């Protein structure tokens, strides 16, 4: 079997390339055109990618997982029913919830509970988004579009219920787009511990 030899042609240099000066002029021309366009050119043609960060910011992408918020009902109370799904799902174990019962005369009594304490340690949080996936009530969301604001004190990173409720979503709303059916809604009678179905 004959050995096949593939002859690769040596790249040839023209005289202009060998002299080097025209190539220098070309390179300088390219750099200069770039420089003039970005320094003196009209604003629209500038291609500067840098952002002056604290003054200018770039919007985070739509599905960016920012700091958490607790969504509200129309009356301002949390949608959370203290089912502990999120704290169970949390791999970093940064969510602490203490559930409490409503007063017996409350229409929600026996129907659902509410979180007396809802604390997220944002320093432990790994922003995986499992809590949002686990929540059956769409009560916890990470659609704020904000990263954790920096601070020099650890206490500032432990968000309590009031703080979490006070953070709006990216659209400025404290609610969610999903409807919620309050007790007594005939279309969604729900399950009642006292009365059964």
């Amino acid at each position: 079997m004959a050995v096949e030899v593939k002859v690769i042609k040596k790249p040839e240099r023209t005289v202009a390339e060998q002299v080097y000066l025209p190539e220098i002029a070309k390179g300088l021309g390219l750099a200069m055109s770039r420089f003039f366009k970005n320094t003196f050119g009209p604003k629209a043609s500038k291609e500067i990618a840098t952002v002056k960060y604290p003054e200018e910011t770039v919007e985070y992408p739509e599905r960016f997982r920012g700091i958490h918020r607790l969504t509200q009902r129309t009356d301002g109370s949390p949608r959370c029913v203290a089912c502990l799904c999120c704290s169970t799902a949390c791999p970093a174990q940064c969510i602490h919830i203490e559930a409490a019962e409503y007063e017996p005369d409350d229409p929600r009594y026996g129907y659902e509970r509410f979180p007396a304490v809802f604390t997220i340690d944002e320093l432990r949080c790994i922003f995986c988004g499992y809590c949002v996936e686990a929540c059956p009530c769409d009560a916890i969301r990470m659609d704020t579009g904000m990263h954790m604001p920096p601070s020099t004190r650890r206490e500032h990173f432990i968000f309590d219920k009031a703080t979490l409720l006070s953070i709006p979503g990216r659209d400025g709303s404290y609610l969610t787009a999903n409807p919620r059916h309050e007790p007594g809604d005939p279309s969604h009678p729900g399950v009642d511990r006292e009365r059964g179905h």
Partner: protein
Amino acid sequence: MTTTFLVVSSLVKVVVVLVITVGTFAPVIIWAERRQSAMIQDRLGPSRAAITLPASAVGFIDRARLPMWRLAALTGITAIVALLALTFVAVKGSNPLPLSTSALTATLVGFGAASVLLRVGYGVHGTIVRNGGKIMLLGLLHPLADALKFIFKEDFVPPKSDKLLFSAGPIIALIPAIAAFAVVPFASSLHWDYLNQVLPRTGEIAGPVVPMQVASINVGILFIFAIASTGIIGAAISGYASDNKYSLLGGIRAASQMVSYEVVLGLTLVPPFMVYASLRLENMATWQYDHIWGIFIPPLTLAAINFFVAAIAETKRVPFDLPEGESELVGGYLTEYSGMKFGMFFMGEFVEVVSLAALASVIFLGGWDVPFLYRDGFEFSLPFVATGFSVPLVHWLVVAIQFLFFLFKIIVLIWFQLMIRWSLPRFRYDQLMSLCWKGLLPVSLLNILVAGAFILSGWLDGWVAFFEKIF
């Protein structure tokens, strides 16, 4: 001329040179170099350093904006009225206002200037308020922050280094760079007694003359060669004293590179000596003022290109920065330096850039010569047509314009050097040496012969006469 006058004027000139080189150009180049590289690479570069004003001052500035704008408008209207009246006088010949023409001119100039200043102030105030009281100056404060950082950094000296030489190295590198400026003329000589008069275009003028250069010495350019070769010692000594192999290699590289290019640098400047028939830089500038700029004479064009290449190699900057080639030598002779000692090397390098630009502009670009500006003011004349108009200017104004134009030339040449610095990749060391000994050296030797033939054959006179006929 009294001795006191001599001393005072010399001191003033020294201060001017120091302000130009160390005070202004070196920090501005540090900023410009990074800004320029950023602009080439679609970044923004240094623009963030700021001095923040207190909130009360911001409030005050904000309140002052509207009155400033109103004042600018009022003064502007006054200036426009004066301008209209002056136009009326020029066209109709009669004055519509109960004011003399000279008063109107004074009003126009005074109020016009005030209006422009107030409008600019309004803009500046607006920018400050919009930035929330931050004064940023396009990022020009970055070099200041750098200097502060340099000063407060730990001044590390390697334990086994030669302490004295280690400290002396940066000083030896910095001082010659500044000293080269001593013989550079930055304007035509100043006739002290006639500051406010229009001088005659030609002829000798009596009275004290202040040459606009620190030292007018007859060796001129040779002094610069001597001083520039002292810079080698700084790099070599610091490389040797650092007690570091890489530093030593860098120092050796610096020494051999600078010695080689020193030869070329000297030989490229022989054709200019032959044409200008003088070693004094002020005479070179005057020759170009009388005739044409050196770069337009064919042998000198080649000499200018050679000089520029050799001088960039002499300043050890990209693409010839092998002494500090960080891909091979960590930091070359700078490896062990930190803090203000490193800052002095840095400063020396940038001052060298400035002095190279100043030299190139004096030898090849006419120095302080402004096109169409003569000792008595501007005169624009068109070639082949016998028309033209002249603007007579007083002496101090002529000198000031020359000085500013000289600075402008320096800035353009610096900009070009920075452009080269960001566009070209670094040479290999053998390429560097073969470029010097096989390329530039024979070419500049030949160029001397060509220049000699050019002068002896009488072509130079013909060439110069041809150009003078056109302009």
